[in-house]
Structure formats: C-alpha cells, structure tokens
C-alpha cells in the first residue's frame, strides 16, 4: 500500500541519517529522489508522508526499550523537515505555508492520538519533535545562516527566521493547556525551551512579543481558571511552581518584556497569586537604578528616572471598548454627564467569578477599569511633557478628578478595583509611578469624600498592605507610597478605626 511504501522510505531515511553527516551528498541525493520519485511531489503527498512518518516515529518511541535511544526516529524526522525547509523549491508556495502545513499535520496526528488514547497518551514523542525542530533550526541559523552556501537561499532563510518562530508559537497556542490538558506539562517546557523563549524575547523589533504574550496569557489563564481557594488540584500547584520559575527567569534575563506587558499579564492573574503579581510589577528595565525606597530623604520629583514614562508594548487603548471617547473627552473637558457615562459603562450585566482575596465574584468590569487607569496614566505623562507638571500634579486637573469621581460615585466594590488598578501602576521609578503616587496620596488625604473618607482610606491601606506583607519582591512604588503615608501622619494613622479594629494590623502599623 501507499502507506507501507511511505513507511519504507522513511525507515531508509532514519538509517541513512545516522550514518552520514546531514550535508553529505548522499543525503541530499536521497531527498532529491524523494521529490523526483513522487514521495513529496505535492501537498497531498507531503501530508501522507508526514502522517506516516510521524505515526511510525511515535510508535517507535512507544515500543522502544526505555533505557535505549527512544527518539531516533523522531530526531530523524526533525532533521528531514528542517532540510526540506532549506532545499525545497518555494516558487509555488512559501516556506510559511509549508511550515504551517507541517505543523497542521502534526496537530492532526497528535489530536487523534490523544483523543483515542486519552489517559494512556504520552506527550514525550511530540515534545521531542518540537524540541528537536528548535535545536536543528538553531544549528542552521547561526551567524545569519552562514552555513548555507547558496546566497539566494541564505537570504530567504534570514527573512524567514522570524516567521519560523512566530508560526511555531501560533501552533503552541493551539496546544494550550485548556485545550490539551494531557500535553500541559510538555507545553510549559516548550514555552520555556532554551531554543525558543530567549529567541522570541530577543527577535529584532520585539517581533516575537505579541505571540509570546499570547502564550503567557494561555498559561496564566489555565492557572487562573483552575485555582480555587477551597481546593486546587495538586497538578495545578505544580503548574504554578513551573510558571513561577519561568517568569523569574524572564524577569532576570529580559525584564523589559514583563515591564512593558504588565497590564495584560495582570489581567490574567488571579489576585490571590500576589507574589507572582509582585514579581511582574516589580520588574524594572535593566538600566534603571532603583534607589532605596526606605530612604527617609527620598524626593520622588528629584529622581531622574521618575521623569521618564514607562514603555508600554500592549496598549490598553485597544481594551477601552466604547469608553475611549467618553474618557478622552472627559480628560479634555470634564463634565458630570461624561462621568456618568463612564461609570455606567463599568458595571457588568452578569456576575463574573474571580478568585480574589476576600471575594469570589465581581460586578464590575475589572479589565476595563485597569485599561482606563493605565490609559489615563499614559495620557497624563504625555500631557506633562506637552505642557507642564502643574497640568497633572493638580487636584483640579481632569486627570485627577476622573479618579476622584469614580471613587466618589462608585460602589465600595468599584472603589476597591479602581484603587487596585492605581496600585498596579506603582512600580519602578518612572513617570507613571510618580503621578499615581500623587493620585493615591491625594485620594487618601482628600477631605471631599465626607462620610466615605474612611472607606477610601481603608481600601488604600488594605491594597498597599496586602502587597507588602507577602514575601519579596515588593514594588518600589508601593513601598515608597506606604512610607510617604506613614511619614506624613503616623499618629493619626494608627488611630483610624479600621486599623484599631484589627489588632494584628494595628501592631504592623505601629511597628512600621
């Protein structure tokens, strides 16, 4: 049968590639004949061959003695595929189409395998295929594909490099843990693979960041969805531990990725993962010098870094939905009718489940609140550069009154989420941290909230405190803000009723 013939050809390839170097003439001739003799003459032919080869390789893994070399067939397949990317004639279709076709076939074989075998499904051969593809590609691409002798081919591959990684990432997104829980641990290992993650992080012009953000969102989404306060499955706890290590590694190597995508990352992390949130929020660009936040003589306005707005990769403006116009209009000319429009746009029609600290549902659109908050912060920093500091460091400015209005008119729940959103911007020394420090302090001390003032103060203290009592790291902006509040009015702070009501908190405040 055709399948048997295909299997024979692939078996020959496996034998050949173990005996000869990949650039040997014999190897090239073998591939040439595969094309000429009709094994790989068109898409259908390729699909048949690929299915057959992959099924054979997976079976070879399953049947091999675990102590032997179980991945020989898989590795041979990987080598062949990378060679085809170099050698095939891409006049009719592109390398991008070919790679997508390749991964599509893998997806079909994979889906059938895990669908049929459910709990006896083994992710390892598929993991190995993806891992070896990454390694073989890396071996080829060194010094702008200098090992490719043909200059035209070399140029094409240099241009294709970015697509290779982004297509790989697209398919990794297909295999996300919510869709394929049987591949979850292999998936996380692939996301953090030494030949994938650092490459994606460092592609020129941040070309890999969008897809990478999507993948991290997939991971966080899975964790968020299956983390419950009452009972979280042990396997999910293990997933969390792995995610923690990966994010710490990213924070060390390329903190800019976390810095510039903090908003979208935090949209997908449940509030109870406080330390993970702090790790992301306390990341700082490599060059920024972080002064001691506990220094009593610190003057935020004097810190050079605080004049520079934080870089943003994922722009929250795309999440403002119908509120972009009202918000931007309000910033230009504030009015109570615009405030009402904005407020009504923040309430949900249905309750949303959330694993919060002390709450399990939300009635407000938390993501939208986060988007508005960051957007206003970005606009405020731009306004300061356009006009003057007084345009925004001013309790009468629309930038400030927008938040004040939301707090005054909103429910306790809305107040809480607005203050949380502001606290999310108290990060490393930058212009946004500086301005939001101003905002939150002025909200704390405002005498215009009347009988609501204690509620506002309690929410602010709770928000700041919950980010500090966790194990490190702590955000510089949060610590500085807290120290500011403690410094300015420490005696009356300890006397506040909501502080005295909880002896443990009273003790913490008194000690601090």
């Amino acid at each position, binding site marked *: 049968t055709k399948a048997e013939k295909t299997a024979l050809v692939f078996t020959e390839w496996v034998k050949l590639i173990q005996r000869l170097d990949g650039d040997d003439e014999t190897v090239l001739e073998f591939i040439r004949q595969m094309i000429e003799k009709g094994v790989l003459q068109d898409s259908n032919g390729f699909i048949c061959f690929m299915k057959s080869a992959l099924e054979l390789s997976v079976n070879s893994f399953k049947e091999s003695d675990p102590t032997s070399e179980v991945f020989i067939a898989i590795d041979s397949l990987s080598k062949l595929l990378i060679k085809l990317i170099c050698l095939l004639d891409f006049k009719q279709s592109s390398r991008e189409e070919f790679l997508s076709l390749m991964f599509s076939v893998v997806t*079909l074989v994979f889906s059938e395998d895990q669908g*049929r075998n459910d709990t006896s499904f083994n*992710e390892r051969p598929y993991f190995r295929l993806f891992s070896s593809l990454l390694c073989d590609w890396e071996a080829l691409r060194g010094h702008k594909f200098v090992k490719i002798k043909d200059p035209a081919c070399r140029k094409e591959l240099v241009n294709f490099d970015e697509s290779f990684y982004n297509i790989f990432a697209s398919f990794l997104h297909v295999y*996300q843990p919510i869709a394929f829980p049987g591949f979850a*641990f292999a998936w996380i290992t692939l996301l953090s693979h030494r030949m994938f993650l650092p490459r994606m992080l460092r592609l020129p012009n941040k070309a890999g960041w969008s897809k990478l953000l999507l993948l991290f969102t997939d991971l966080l989404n899975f964790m968020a969805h299956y983390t*419950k306060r009452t009972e979280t499955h042990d396997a999910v706890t293990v997933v969390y531990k792995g995610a923690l290590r990966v994010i710490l590694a990213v924070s060390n190597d390329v903190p800019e990725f976390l810095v510039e995508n903090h908003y979208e990352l935090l949209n997908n992390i449940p509030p109870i993962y406080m330390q993970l949130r702090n790790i992301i929020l306390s990341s700082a660009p490599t060059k920024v010098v972080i002064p001691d936040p506990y220094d009593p003589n610190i003057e935020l306005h004097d810190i050079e870094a605080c004049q520079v707005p934080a870089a943003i990769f994922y722009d929250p403006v795309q999440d403002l939905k119908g509120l972009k116009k009202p918000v931007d209009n309000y910033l230009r000319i504030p009015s109570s009718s615009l405030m009402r429009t904005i407020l009504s746009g923040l309430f949900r029609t249905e309750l949303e489940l959330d694993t919060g600290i002390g709450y399990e549902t939300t009635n407000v659109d938390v993501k939208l609140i986060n988007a508005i908050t960051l957007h206003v912060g970005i606009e405020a920093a731009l306004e300061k550069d356009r006009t003057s500091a007084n345009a925004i460091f001013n309790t009468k400015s629309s930038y400030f009154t927008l938040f004040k209005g939301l707090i005054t008119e909103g429910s306790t729940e809305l107040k809480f989420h607005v203050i949380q959103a502001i606290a999310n911007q108290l990060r490393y020394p930058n212009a946004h941290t500086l301005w939001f420090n101003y905002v939150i302090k002025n909200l704390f001390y405002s005498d215009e909230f009347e009988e609501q003032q204690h509620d506002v103060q309690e929410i602010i203290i709770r928000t700041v405190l919950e980010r500090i009592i966790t194990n490190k790291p702590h955000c510089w902006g949060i610590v500085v803000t807290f120290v500011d509040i403690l410094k300015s009015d420490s005696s009356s702070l300890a006397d506040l009723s909501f502080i005295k009501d909880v002896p443990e908190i009273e003790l913490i405040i008194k000690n601090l």
Partner: protein
Amino acid sequence: ENPVFKNPLFSPGLAYWAQTKRPLLQPFEKMPPDMVSQLESSLLNCPDSLDADTPKLYQAPLSLPHPTSIFFPNEPIRLVSTETPEESRPARDFYSRTSLARIMSKFDLDTLFMVFYHYQGTYEQFLAAKELSNRGWQFNKINRCWLFKEVEKLPPGNEKSEEVSWRYFDYQKSWLARRCGDEFVYRQEDFEKI
C-alpha cells in the same frame, strides 16, 4: 457536515482536534474527572532535561589521527602560566557558568588542544576554543593554529620597556608550542573573534 471533515487526509484527526475547541469556548467551572486524569498523566510523563537535549544522530569520528606516536611528549606543556585571575576575566557569559566550561577551565593546554583539534564541529570544541581564548590564545584562520603573545618586561635602561614574541601551537607535527619566526607579522583580520 463540512466537506473538509470527509477528506480522508484529515480524518479522523480533524474531528478530534475540533473537540478540543469546546473547553476553550466554554471553559469548565470545575475540572471534570477526565481532565484531571489527563493532567495527572501529563505530569507523570513530564519531559525532563534529557528529553530537551540537543539530538545527536550522527557522531563524526575523531577528525585527526590520534597522536599516540612515541615521538609525542608525555609530559605536559611547560609554559608561563596563562591562567588569568578570576576578576580580570572577560564578563561571564552563560557558557562560563556551565559545568563543562568550568571543568575545561581546569584542563591543561594539552587537553584543550586535543579537544579542539580532534572533536571538530562539537560543543566541546567550541568550549575548548572559548577557554583557550580566555587564556589569551588567539586562533589564526589561515594556518589553523593557536597563537599566544608573550610579553617580557625588560630591565630599565633598555631602549624598549618590553619585548614581544609570539608562540604558536604546532598541532600537525611536534604537538608543542613553538616560537614564531622573526618574519611573523600580526594581522588582526587573520584571527577569529571568539
């Protein structure tokens, strides 16, 4: 009913794949039992670092005949120590933190040259090159030799304060470091940047 599901090329994989879209569109509130067992199975089979290691299908034989001739010296090369102190080494890249690189930092020059010349195209050759480079040796692309610049401080009163001489490691014949002739001229473009 979509014709693509009837295409024998895509069946039955496509149908199985389509099923996985459901939890994406309508996530379960609580993990159903089959999802729990799939997740646990994944944990059990979790790939480890060996699974993620670089595939090695074809191992090239040693590139040069092994120097076992009686004419090759048995004792190690005696040269002025080229080991630079830790602090003044070049900024540590991630290679220098690997155990193999750390082991190589303790190798004799002999061993480093052996690895370099006999394990062509390998990671070990790469690390040996890095270590030699860390010790001040430079690789000449033209004659494929490693060269070392010796700087001898001359006593005061001399016309020059120091005397520079170059040595090269003769990997083809004597397996020793020899002095370069007086006609040797150093040209930076002849040397590989490691």
